[in-house]
């Protein structure tokens, strides 16, 4: 694209009005090109993504939606239409409601400590430390570990009879914990596995965002006498708002879809004899790939989708209310604009 020579700030109909006073120039062909540039190039930017996504991303989703209303035979690749029967069946299963309970419990036990810890770790890494690359990359090590190794390690740690944790507990005189029998303790163990894997990951995301906060803000605040905590609360967090929204939404979505860890918690992968740690996605997987009842599994996937949507919206709302946007550079809402002075 050739550089156009306009001095006119962007003025498509959706953009905020320009700051400052610049007199509009005379319309010319190059100006028209520039307007097209403005109006249509965004679509060009997103189209590579959407085209590919439509084929390999949307097609499976649409397929899942369609077969959720059917009694689907995987091998014959055909099904009979049954309306909402699959949905109704799932909602009538006590196992579904147990799985829902488990999913929420594990979600809360994992996301909340994880995010708090991630912010904390990111703040530490943001400081001026020696050997930055080493420290920063090593928090990502747990994320890299292959699932089979994670499964082995943690089932050894949380083994009911011979696990490391129970050995330590009995050595200091406490009772061993029934990790694989009691639902609550199984959730703690699984949440530990999840946190182990994902805390470093979230910490680095937050770190990347923190790095983009200009240091001058902190300088100015130090000059004004704000301590580290105050700086964190009033500068760092608001600047991180878009990223925090990202982290919370992805943590919500991921947390409600936890699958690998409960599956690896014992060697049957069924979530426990009384479904103590069966999550919705694990339940879905067992219906789909265990019983090959894909119609039913698809219905469960969409029920989960609706649940995630609801919780995600709630969390989004909470985050936007909690974290003020004062330092951010995102969209400028009219209310905020008045406060920003040039």
């Amino acid at each position, binding site marked *: *694209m050739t*550089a156009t020579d306009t*001095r006119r700030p*962007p003025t498509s109909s959706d953009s905020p009005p320009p700051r400052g006073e610049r007199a509009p120039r005379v319309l010319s062909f190059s100006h028209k090109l520039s307007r097209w540039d*403005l109006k249509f*190039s965004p679509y060009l930017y*997103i189209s*590579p993504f959407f085209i590919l*996504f439509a084929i*390999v*991303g949307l097609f499976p*989703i649409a397929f*899942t939606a369609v077969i959720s209303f059917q009694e689907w035979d*995987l091998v014959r690749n055909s099904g009979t239409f049954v309306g909402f029967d699959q949905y109704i069946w799932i909602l009538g299963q006590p196992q579904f409601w147990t799985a829902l309970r488990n999913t929420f419990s594990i979600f809360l036990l994992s996301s909340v400590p994880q995010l708090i810890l991630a912010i*904390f*770790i990111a703040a530490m*890494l943001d400081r*001026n*430390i020696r050997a*930055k*690359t*080493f420290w920063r*990359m*090593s*928090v990502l*090590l*747990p994320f*890299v*570990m292959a*699932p*089979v*190794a994670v499964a082995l*390690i943690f089932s050894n740690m949380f083994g009911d009879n011979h696990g490391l944790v129970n050995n330590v507990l009995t050595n200091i005189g406490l009772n061993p914990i029934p990790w694989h029998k009691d639902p609550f303790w199984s959730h703690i163990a699984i949440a530990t596995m999840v946190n*182990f894997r994902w805390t*470093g990951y979230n910490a*680095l*995301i937050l770190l*990347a965002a923190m*790095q*983009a*906060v*200009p*240091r*001058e803000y*902190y300088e*100015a*605040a130090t000059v*004004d006498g704000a301590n580290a905590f105050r700086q964190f609360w009033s500068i760092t967090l608001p600047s991180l708002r878009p*990223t925090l929204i*990202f982290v919370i*939404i*992805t943590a919500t*979505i991921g947390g409600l*879809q936890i*699958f690998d860890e409960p599956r690896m918690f014992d060697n049957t992968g069924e979530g426990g004899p009384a479904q103590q740690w069966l999550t919705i*996605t694990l339940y*879905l997987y067992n219906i789909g790939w265990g019983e090959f009842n894909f119609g039913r599994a698809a219905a469960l996937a969409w029920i989960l*989708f609706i649940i995630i949507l609801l919780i995600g919206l709630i969390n989004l709302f909470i985050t936007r209310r909690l974290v003020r946007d004062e330092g951010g*550079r995102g969209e*400028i809402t009219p209310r905020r604009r008045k406060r920003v002075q040039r």
Partner: protein
Amino acid sequence: MTSLSSPPLAIIEEGIPNAKRRQRGDRTTKIRGMRAGTWVYIGLGVVIVSAIFPYYWSFLIGSGDASTINDPDMSWLPGGNFIANALSVVNDPAVNFWLALWNSIFSSTVIAASVVVFSTLAGWAFAKLRFRGRGWLLAFIVATLAVPTQLGVVPLYILFADLGWTGNIGAIIIPALTSAFGVFWMTQYLSQSVPDELIEAARVDGASMIRTFWTVGVVAARPAAAMLFLFTFVNAWNNFFWPFIVLDRQSPTLPVALSLLQSNYFVDYSIVLAGVLLATIPLLILFAFAGRQLVNGIMAGAVKG
């Protein structure tokens, strides 16, 4: 709360004198002043130990023999068998180790690069450009993340079988070329880290959209892009189920190949874990490279002009 003056920023462009010689460490030291205290190092130390412990434990077992994992009195010092176990992994005829390694490296690199490119483009548009339907499209993309992917294998396999691409490494790469997660991440990062003033400044200087993207967006996105590359690479690297289904056994990826070490009624975990550690080494090398990209943000300093 003191009112924040408008942030001074600088773009490290080639035109600035001494730009290249300016040390990053210098800048932050001057700006930050104080070095991090001991508590920070202690805290980080705890984090590191808990991160590395499982690797050490795997190494302990991988350097033992088949009965080490069951041994209640397992020593905390490594045995001497690691090299031997690693060699049996590499030389195992059923595990096409070098081919699988290459397949994994190739597919993961292509996937990660593609995701970064497409996500940065789309993220820039969603974050900084104004167009009709922007909000809805972004919400739609994020919403698709909420659909579990465990069932996606079924229609994907039908699609690829119809195209005749099963057994082909392209079948691994193509479904993973785009990522809703990546778009969401770049959107949020760019909306936070690129102030609108910068774009306006570039436009004022006469840049077209694409040039603005190239000089401002791509530069600003670098840390986030490095992160996204890392994450996507690791996910693609560790992916098991889809490569298992769609590739044939002659040309697998590394996780599928290594899973064969578990094929028997009795599994020798010392070999399995030695294989796991071997498979992690390329990732650690990648970390060393990508980590440098995350050392500092690029946008630091005063805005030009």
